[in-house]
């Protein structure tokens, strides 16, 4: 029997139609994402416009935030966002690095999976849980045990002393940074673990073959090879920390001012928006909050884009050497 003759032209036409339909549907879904991104950007800009037009550049250079006099400056939330995220990364990166190295290079086989799964589960805990825990468990502990120690020991020091002065509130910039650090650790360590796993075995074996110890192979072979990817992972974590809302809102104290001390209450962009949007009256107030959102969008976009770029470069190199 001739199989070619068995294909009916009608059936072939149906096949082609379904194929076109399918292509069209997937293309539509892809375009929808772009449209959404454009729509979000556009509505943010439109919403932020009154505030930006009114305050001009002073919107991002002034600390004042006064709904009574209708004066709004974003400096305090910007400062709070950047400082809490930076401190959080300072605490989270070394720990995440240790976890990732342990999981890829040192952990015995039977321990790798349980710890790996635990980390993924931690990453899935809703942020409001971290917020509640931070407020009711972490903050009192910090207030009673950690902050008094910081004030006594680091407070009198020159240069860094001024960051650790004032009363121990419990809540504040430092507490928010702690909570953020705990939240991004699972995330950053999971990315770093994946990055370390891209290091070819044979490269590590070359190190071992020259008589290097595990320590030397990790520092001189694994880390240099994975550097770009590690930075990418850190940036992704930073992107998360910058935008985190609920947990921070619980523990940061929500004060629109820039205190030198890290123990003082402050605010972040997302915490301000979450706190004030419901009670915002007046167009300028609302518009200022939207403008805060647009700023956050810009900051996280830049961070995430940089991270993606670095990860992409790593992937290209991994492909190139394969």
């Amino acid at each position, binding site marked *: 029997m001739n199989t070619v003759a068995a294909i009916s032209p009608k059936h072939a036409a149906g096949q082609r139609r379904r194929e076109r339909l399918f292509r069209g549907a997937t293309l539509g879904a892809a375009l929808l994402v772009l449209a959404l991104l454009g729509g979000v950007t556009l509505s943010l800009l439109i919403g932020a416009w009154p505030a930006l037009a009114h305050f001009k550049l002073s919107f991002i250079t002034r600390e004042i935030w006064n709904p009574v006099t209708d004066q709004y400056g974003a400096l305090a939330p910007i400062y709070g966002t950047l400082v809490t995220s930076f401190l959080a990364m300072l605490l989270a990166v070394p720990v995440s690095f240790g976890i990732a190295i342990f999981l890829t290079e040192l952990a*015995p*086989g039977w321990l790798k999976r349980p710890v790996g799964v635990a980390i993924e589960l931690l990453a899935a805990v809703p942020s409001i849980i971290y917020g509640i825990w931070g407020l009711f468990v972490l903050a009192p502990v910090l207030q009673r045990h950690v902050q008094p120690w910081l004030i006594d020991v680091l407070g009198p020091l020159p240069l860094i002393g001024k960051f650790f002065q004032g009363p121990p509130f419990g809540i504040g910039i430092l507490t928010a940074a702690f909570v953020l650090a705990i939240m991004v650790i699972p995330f950053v360590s999971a990315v770093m673990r994946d990055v370390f796993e891209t290091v*070819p075995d*044979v*490269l*590590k*074996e*070359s*190190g*071992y*073959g*020259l*008589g*290097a*110890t595990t320590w*030397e192979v990790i520092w*001189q*072979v694994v880390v*240099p*090879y994975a550097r770009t990817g590690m930075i990418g992972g850190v940036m992704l974590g930073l992107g998360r920390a910058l935008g985190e809302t609920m947990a921070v809102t619980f523990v940061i104290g929500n004060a629109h001012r820039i205190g030198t001390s890290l123990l003082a209450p402050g605010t972040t962009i997302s915490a301000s928006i979450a706190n004030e949007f419901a009670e915002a009256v007046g167009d300028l107030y609302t518009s200022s909050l939207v403008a805060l959102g647009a700023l956050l969008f810009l900051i996280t976009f830049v961070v995430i884009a940089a991270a993606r770029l670095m990860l992409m470069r790593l992937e290209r190199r991994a492909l190139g*050497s394969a």
Partner: protein
Amino acid sequence: MNKTPDNNPSRPSLPPPAADAAEAAMEEALGAHGSAADRGARLLKPSGRRGGIPAEPHSPLALDSPPIAHPVFHCKDVNMFYGAKQALKNITLDVAPRQVLAMIGPSGCGKSTFLRCLNRMNDTIPNTRTTGTITLDGQDIFAPEVDVAQLRARIGMVFQKPNPFPKSIFENVAYGPRIHGMTRSRAELDEIVCSSLTRAGLWDEVKDRLNAPGTGLSGGQQQRLCIARTIAVQPEVILMDEPCSALDPVATARVEDLIDELRAQYAIVIVTHSMQQAARVSQRTAYFHLGELIEIGETDRIFTNPRHRLTEDYITGRFG
């Protein structure tokens, strides 16, 4: 890594040698000069376990002649397991100083695995187990007091795919001397890097760009860089696992010439899938089959007059 004491299955009928005579007895057993009873016992025992491989009137030991007086590596009854899967079965062979030993055999027969036993590289793979004895210059490499890093520093290794570190050409070669604190000054380090690159035949090609990344070189240059990196540590032996399989014929010829020069100073064990290469570069050849050492002997003899049918089938191209 687990290691069971040498249980010595292949010489059950020998009278138990006095401790100090053990080495001499072993050496004798390695040659063709063992007693008839000795040879007979060896024949009977292992052949019963060798599923699939027909018994032949020779064991690998008896085929190895003449005996090697001061072997660099002395391996006896080496068994190696990946989990439950046995990859090497009772491998017994010696590696002679200042000679190239080629290991040939169908792919998957355990050549790489055996090579990696010699510098305990298999330790880095989880769930592996090696039994038997391997000595380097008479010292048991599995002894608990052995520092694996120091052991590996005495044994160079060159891999199938050229794999320079993501560092500069200079730093690639300087890496080993640095981690072992072999130099006291920058001038000494420069000297080691220069001489290693020169001996690897790469100096003239890279001397103007020592700070360029090693990964930017051509494949053949990268492989010679890896060889330079290896000899910079001044090892006693160099293990090579199909070092030319990723290289073009010109680069291959250069590396083969290099191997021939290095032989003046080092013992070299090379795994190769090319019988022509084995014939060109080696003085002795070992033929592996399904995790067993079938035959070992002078390269000329193996290729002109193989004694085992499996060896003959392989070198005449009937399988592989």
